[in-house]
């Protein structure tokens, strides 16, 4: 009997420990005593519990109102986690005014063996108007130290039908995640999880019938998860939010009082595109022609080819209308006003290009884009697109134009646009996908002439030819620079290098390759040790370090565009020296020529010639290939550092 009792007690105690109580205010001593997170010992804080419940209630005068209940319990392990004790809540204001209610918060600390509880009082709560559309309610928790557990809850009341995305992963771990969405039958939403996330939660979908204040069904989604790992950013992965676990709710239809569909929204990309096209601020802009008619006629006189016309129109728009920095797929001012005032958002500018070209009988169409910071949409939604460019088709070939930037050209688009794919919409709202990433390689070719002088200083000349994206980036960086600051930038962190007489051709002629050449003097690049001279032939152009530092990666590397970087190096040996050894010629490839590196060195009397070439054929490297890729890049760095050895000639 004695033994039996013991067993029962033990079992009971274990259950007690495991059964966490997440009710507000039920913070346990064990949570306060915890020194580090059991599965992520380096976490500075952890979300012990996150609750986010969205439901709609019926208001006699305003109809269905959205209510979003938020509750957090957060453990602070160390001082780096203190930021979690301050929260800013952004609310919409104006017509769709939102309000916050029921904000309560407590900090819990262990004092001796007692739990001390401090209330979030009014002196820790702040309000401010942020801008015309947003206001901020912020609060900061009292008495937060290492080891503190904080807890807060509040409710946002909103007249909006749209439901904000659910964030299901943070840069600290979540122990317990409790998300519920309950939507009335009258609003139909499509839920979608981020498929690119490492952590994918399970959705439980149910329905419930209510009868007060009247009969209707409620659709419910539940997420109940434990131990969501922290999301860690990685270099060269692009937008980390593309990999964050989350759920979006897209409104697809509204039913009327008789529960019959009254209005439908996007359900597939075709419909999404059509809905966008039908807007006054999109398709509605494309028929406006009168205000630029005269300017265009003068400009296009004599132009026959569609692409020729496209380039002329692109340049006209670039010179007349400047981008105000705002992204949108919808015109902000309207193309007429933008043309007159000389500024506009992305849509004002690029829809103007489409309208102008269409008015001239050119087959030009808008292409909807989701920019890199907008990420890749989870499902068909109007918000999935936030940008628009222009596509001109002539026969089988097409040309993509974004006239918001000075140096972008046909098919060479600003980097923000190079994400996912584009949705091209033709005149009647019919749409299809188009590729926006380039399939031709951008090329940087460098000719490097090296002459080693008697004092072992190196002098020589560099000539570069840059195409497409490489040229675009170079122009963005240096086209505005004075020769002096251009030189300064090239000299920076390149040792004892002095550049003179720089020449930058086609600086502004964006339809031609960039050509840069300069003369240089490089000291301290040749080591004289004993009777021998040592130097590495790529000089200041060598890759100095392997940019890939992590041991392993969770997310792909994104080089964005395919490119080729090649060098032709001619070396003239100093008088009185002969070649002792050259680095070995070698060609190495990664993953079936996805990336390739070739190094060829040849001697010819007192001249040496090297060809060094790196080809990034596939700009995406998957995490499973990362270790090999890192080693491959290490090999390239190593190879570029190899030395040529010269020996004093015997008289």
């Amino acid at each position: 009997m004695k033994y039996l009792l013991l067993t029962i007690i033990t079992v009971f105690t274990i259950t007690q420990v495991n059964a966490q109580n997440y009710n507000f205010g039920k913070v346990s001593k064990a949570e306060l005593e915890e020194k580090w997170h059991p599965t992520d010992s380096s976490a500075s804080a952890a979300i012990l519990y996150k609750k986010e419940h969205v439901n709609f209630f019926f208001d006699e005068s305003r109809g269905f109102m959205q209510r979003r209940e938020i509750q957090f319990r957060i453990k602070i392990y160390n001082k780096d986690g203190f930021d979690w004790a301050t929260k800013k809540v952004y609310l919409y204001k104006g017509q769709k005014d939102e309000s916050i209610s029921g904000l309560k918060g407590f900090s819990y600390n262990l004092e001796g063996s007692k739990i001390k509880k401090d209330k979030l009082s009014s002196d820790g709560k702040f309000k401010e108007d942020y801008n015309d559309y947003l206001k901020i309610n912020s609060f900061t928790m009292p008495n937060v130290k290492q080891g503190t557990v904080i807890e807060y809850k509040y409710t946002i009341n909103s007249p909006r039908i749209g439901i904000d995305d659910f964030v299901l992963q943070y840069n600290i771990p979540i122990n317990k995640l409790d998300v519920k969405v309950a939507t009335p039958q009258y609003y139909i939403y499509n839920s979608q999880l981020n498929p690119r996330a490492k952590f994918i939660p399970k959705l439980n979908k149910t329905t419930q019938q209510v009868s007060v204040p009247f009969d209707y069904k409620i659709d419910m989604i539940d997420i109940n998860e434990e131990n969501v790992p922290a999301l860690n950013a990685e270099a060269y992965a692009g937008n980390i939010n593309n990999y964050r676990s989350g759920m979006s709710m897209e409104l697809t239809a509204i039913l009327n009082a008789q529960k019959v569909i009254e209005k439908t929204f996007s359900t597939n990309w075709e419909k999404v595109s059509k809905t966008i096209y039908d807007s006054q601020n999109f398709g509605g802009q494309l028929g406006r022609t009168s205000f630029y008619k005269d300017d265009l006629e003068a400009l296009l006189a004599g132009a026959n080819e569609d692409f020729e016309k496209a380039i002329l129109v692109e340049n006209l728009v670039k010179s007349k209308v400047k981008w105000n920095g705002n992204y949108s797929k919808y015109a902000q001012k309207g193309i007429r006003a933008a043309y007159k005032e000389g500024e506009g958002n992305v849509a004002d500018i690029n829809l103007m290009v489409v309208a102008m070209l269409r008015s001239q009988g050119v087959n030009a169409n808008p292409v909807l884009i989701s920019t890199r910071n907008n990420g890749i949409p989870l499902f068909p939604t109007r918000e999935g697109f936030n940008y628009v460019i222009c596509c001109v088709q002539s026969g089988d070939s097409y040309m993509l134009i974004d006239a918001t930037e000075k140096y972008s050209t046909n098919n060479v688009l600003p980097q923000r646009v190079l994400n996912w794919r584009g949705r091209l919409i033709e005149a009647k709202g019919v749409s299809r996908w188009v590729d926006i990433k380039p399939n031709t390689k951008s090329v940087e070719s460098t000719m490097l002439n090296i002459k080693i002088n008697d004092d072992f200083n190196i002098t020589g000349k560099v000539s570069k030819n840059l195409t497409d994206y490489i040229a675009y980036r170079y122009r963005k960086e240096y086209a505005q620079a004075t020769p002096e600051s251009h030189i300064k930038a090239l000299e920076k962190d390149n040792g004892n290098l002095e550049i003179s007489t720089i020449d930058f051709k086609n600086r502004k002629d964006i339809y031609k390759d960039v050509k840069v050449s300069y003369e240089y003097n490089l000291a301290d690049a040749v080591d004289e040790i004993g009777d021998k001279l040592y130097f590495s032939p790529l000089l200041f152009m060598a890759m100095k370090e392997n940019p890939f530092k992590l041991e392993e990666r969770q997310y792909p590397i994104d080089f964005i565009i395919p490119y080729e970087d090649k060098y032709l190096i001619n070396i003239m040996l100093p008088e009185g020296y002969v070649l002792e050894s050259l680095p070995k010629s070698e060609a190495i490839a990664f993953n079936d020529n996805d990336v390739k590196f070739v190094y060829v060195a040849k001697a010819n009397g007192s001249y040496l010639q090297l060809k060094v070439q790196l080809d990034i054929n596939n700009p995406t490297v998957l995490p499973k290939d990362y270790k090999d890729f890192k080693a491959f890049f290490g090999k390239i760095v190593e190879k570029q550092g190899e030395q040529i050895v010269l020996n004093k000639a015997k008289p």
Partner: protein
Amino acid sequence: MPRINFFLVTVFTVISFYGFSQTESLYNSYTIPLDLKANANAVVRFEEKVVEILDYDKINVKEKRIVTILNEYGKKHANALEFYDALRDIKEMRVYIYNASGEEIKKIKEKDFIDASAVSDISIYEDDRVKYLKYVPQSYPYTIEYTSEVVYNSTAFFPGWQPIGGYYVGIEHSEYKIINSAKIELKTKKENFDAFDIEELSDKHFIANKIQGIKYEAYTPELNNLVPRYKVALKKFNMVGVEGVNNNWSDFGKWMYDRLLTGTDAIPQSTVDEVKQLTAGIDNKIERAKKVYKYMQNKTRYISIQVGIGGWKPMMAKDVDKLGYADCKGLTNYTKALLEAVNVPSYYTVVYGGNGIRNIDSEFSAIEGNHVILCVPNENENIFLECTSQTSPFGFTAGFTDDRDVLLVKPEGGEIVHTKVYEADDSVQKTIANVYMDDTGGFKAEVNITTTGYQYNLHKGIENETTRDQQLHYTEYWANINNISIDNITVNNDLDHIVYEENVKLSSRNYASKSGSRLIFQPNMFNKVTKIPPRYNNRKLEFKIDRSFKDVDEFIIQLPENLKIEAMAEGKTIDSKFGKYDFKLEAIDGNKIKYTRTYILNKGNYQKQDYKAFRDFRKQIVKHDKTKIVLIKA
């Protein structure tokens, strides 16, 4: 990590205009004198700022500015913005924009300015707001004419004059005038007037004529200290309803003590008892202060909240005690109250915090500083406490509040003192390594790094990183070592002695490059200088090295049996006024190489003529840090 509270970031936003009849030609960009376009992204064609003192608590500031923006980098020099709050009222704000040839192309009224909260991202609350111009230029150059009128009812900050607001802006005409209608006594100070063409029409009316743009050059001291400035303060002023006097630092400091600090330092008896108990039996006051500082660090955290008398009055100490958070003022004042309770006197201290060194002007009392720390007076040396950091060692100021003039706010009045200077021997980095090379050119190594002073500040914090990020840190720290792998890391932050110690085991494949039967490698693996300061054909500005330091390195390299040294330099010593560098290579018993290196950099203000020599010094170091050893099969 200490943080700054910017009290009010209004340096030269406010200005004015009285009946100057400029000609049309000022709107025409083609009339800019050629020499003013050199080194300029914008040219101030005409600027007039008139400040009228209506009372000790009311000043009116009128400003008119015509600026030609030459390119996109020049846009910020339009300066068409005003901060405002309950006590700063914008009466007028207006902009006209002209194209290159001077035709008006746009007019922007006050209501078309963007109105936003001036809250910074790091701050949870500030009551400042700002109105600014958002204009998308169609082409360059263009000219903007900005007119504004602002009334200040809080006069502790007095808009002075600094015609050169930054690098790369030329000045054609900038004028400043004070009309003292209320005959309030003024304090004024002129700085750097002699080096520029400044016309003095009266003792409070100046014109700056034709000043060329200043090009940025590396290692330049704060630009503010090199350009003409006119500082003004009212001897009797109003700060958010509180009247003040300011004749000198002594009485201004006293005013601060009486009106901003007095009555804010009460703390609950329970807390008094707690710190008393904590320090019971400790005779030495510094030891007591250490205990109390630690207590405060564990109890509080930093939060930026800018409220209370223009952001100048600290939060009540009892509230800090209750809530456990405050900004720098609140935390400093709270610490002061705690120290008081254990009989350690201390002074609230106003400072310009930052990695760059900026002094409180000892010759001109005015509202200054952007941060507050606490001074504990001690026999031979004042001790300064950073109260916003929960991790800073006791008395540690390097990198944020070191080596600068600060204001002690004492009950009897203000006093300017200088904070601790970290000399080369105070800021040491010592790297000791045992390296085992293999015959393929790879190595394994055990490295020990200890740092003190300013270098401690540069290294600390690794202990809080995740394993992944610690590894990442060392692969970046030793980016010169290709194919590196970090095998083991232990770090120790000794807060008592303020020494940071790192022990890292690492290895590299193919570190040495092969060339036929030879291996070539650089023995300085772990502490290389690779960057040479930028080259200027004709340096225009003096330069400054902010802090001294000393690096000491000792690496023992064990060679594999089958390799021997073919060639190796002996060493090199370089002495210059900027510092000292030497390295030595010795073959020692057991097929080992001993590499030793010392590098000392001396802080100081140097003439522009010395820059070339400074660059040469660094060039030499970069060169010798790359010294190579050639090994050959034994």
